[in-house]
């Protein structure tokens, strides 16, 4: 496999709220390789977005990254000064969000908002930045980029804005693009447009992508590898085929089993995962999945399973595999 671009080790992020400490991330370990598209899936509230925001250190009050390291280009992002971190954001690592409609500032034109990144990171002057912005818009397949650049966000449709968002994110040739549910707010046909675009871009520029979604369809469509998250932990990490055809963790198994398959001919009962996501203020002891797990053992209630390599680039955090010898 190719080089590691970013290496996240033991990342813990907590939110200190009135009602208690939300232990949103409980020691995330994750490598992102150069040029790959890594999918991150999991139920709502499992910490996908927090992972992404922690990565570029945009966790806002009352949240705090308490432990862990994020190695990027040999530097630990956690230890960088805010100023150094700013020079990475939007430049080396950029991010796009779920709601294209609200992610642009309503009072500025699209073009000026894209140009802003270029002026900031590439030190272009106003005019050059604008020109580059228009180029970027054209790059993502926007017809009439000039007109779009001069438009205010409310004048454009969601699909268009998401393209513009992508243009902005790619403006500085980032090494990593984080996409937090980039298509969830869009219609099926528009979603298809954006997914096609992302696949296309991946080929054209070779940026690594961290794609966050809860749509397993999207994952299977565009990702190379998939990380499955549950309640602030990564429970399984493997290439996309392994996840879909050889899921190892009981949670992943349940997740894959609970989607209706397109090629079913008659109705059959879907798998379910009983219960619901735990409260992260008082997360279950040991394996956070144990209260919902059908294969729960005594050890699961006490000890937190570690992420273990159980096969060709297939990692799982589950006590069921404690006896499995590590492959690597």
């Amino acid at each position, binding site marked *: 496999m190719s080089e590691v671009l970013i290496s996240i080790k033991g990342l813990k992020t907590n939110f200190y*709220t*009135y*009602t208690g400490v939300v232990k949103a991330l409980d020691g995330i370990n994750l490598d992102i390789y150069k040029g790959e598209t890594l999918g991150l899936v999991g139920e709502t509230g499992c910490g996908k977005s927090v992972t992404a925001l922690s990565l570029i250190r945009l966790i806002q009050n009352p949240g705090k990254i308490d432990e862990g390291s994020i190695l990027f280009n040999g530097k630990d992002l956690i230890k960088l000064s805010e100023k150094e971190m700013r020079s990475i954001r939007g430049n080396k690592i950029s991010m796009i969000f779920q709601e294209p409609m609200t992610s642009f500032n309503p009072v500025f034109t699209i073009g000026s908002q894209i140009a802003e990144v270029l002026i900031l990171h590439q030190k272009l002057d106003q005019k050059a930045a604008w020109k580059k912005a228009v180029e970027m818009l054209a790059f993502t397949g926007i017809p009439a980029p000039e007109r779009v650049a001069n438009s205010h966000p409310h004048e454009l449709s969601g699909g268009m804005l998401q393209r513009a968002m992508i243009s902005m994110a790619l403006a500085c040739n980032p090494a990593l693009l984080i996409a937090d549910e980039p298509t969830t707010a869009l219609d099926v046909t528009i979603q298809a447009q954006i997914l096609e675009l992302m696949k296309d871009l991946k080929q054209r520029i070779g940026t690594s992508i961290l794609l966050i979604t809860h749509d397993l369809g999207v994952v299977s469509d565009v990702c190379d590898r998939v990380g499955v998250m549950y309640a602030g932990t990564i429970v399984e990490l493997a290439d996309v085929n392994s996840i879909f055809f050889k899921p190892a963790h009981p949670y992943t198994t349940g997740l894959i089993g609970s989607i209706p398959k397109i090629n079913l001919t008659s109705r059959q009962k879907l798998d379910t995962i*009983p*219960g*619901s*996501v*735990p*409260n992260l203020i008082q997360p279950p002891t040991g394996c956070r999945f144990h*209260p*919902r797990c059908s294969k729960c053992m005594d050890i699961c209630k006490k000890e937190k399973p570690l992420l273990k390599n159980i096969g060709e680039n297939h990692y799982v955090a589950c006590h069921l595999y404690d006896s499995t010898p590590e492959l690597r």
Partner: protein
Amino acid sequence: MAVETQDVITGQKKKGSIIKNWSEKNESRIKEIKHSIRLFTKSPLAMLGLVIIVMFLLVAIFAPYIAPYGAEERNWKELKQPPSEKHIFGTDDTGGDIFSRIIYGSRTSLYIGFSVVSVAIILGTLVGAISGYYGGKIDELMMRVTDIFLAFPSLVLAMVICASLGRSIENVMLAMTIVWWPAYARLVRGQALSIRERKYIEAARAIGASDFRIITKHLAPNSFSPIIVQATMDLGNVILVAAGLSFIGFGAKPGQAEWGRMISEGAAYMLNQPWMATFPGLAILIVCLGFNLFGDGLRDILDPRQRR
């Protein structure tokens, strides 16, 4: 606040239906209240407001026990005395003890505040809820009417109404009610308009609920919190405007223990007997501050965005 749910799915379905025990029955309600209280205690300003309001209420209730002199007790031999041990805030130009008069004045202020605000709320809620819920022509008409009232700055409208009704506390209260209700109508209407769109209203209609039921059971309770906030702050505002009206000559009778009047009487002596106006003014300031602090805190608590 998801509930641990394994029991729901994995069985142990208790036969015997809903539990009858009071504390269990109201567990959630109690939890709600406790939660609100906890949120509230985290805000020092709101707590300060609450303390002020409680003190104010106690003072009003127990006025005769706290005040060293009567509300209208005048010692004609001790006019305009500066603060002393005998009269800690001094005396006024009729020999009344300012401290005692301020204490009794809290009753007047409370009386005005609560009457005006409660009548305005009832009237405003009625109009606003009907207007917001039905929309259309009724709404259009009612909103034009409130537009007209709201086109007046409140003090000015209260002033002309008082001027044409004549001078008395009752007229001041009437005028202020007339001035205040449209704001509530607006507020409730806005709430109604937004709540009307919520799906649970639709659900209620789908199960055949009457308009009356929807308004009383669904619309009203849910538009409650901004009204409570507004009402709390308005208690302060009403007291303030009433004092303003009193200052320009409407409202309280001569000699009556009313803060606005005490200030206006004291104003003429500001040069040499500043205590006459200073203390009643401080009383108004503190009480209004109490209501505003409390309301501000309530707003934060009741704002769902601030929750959890």
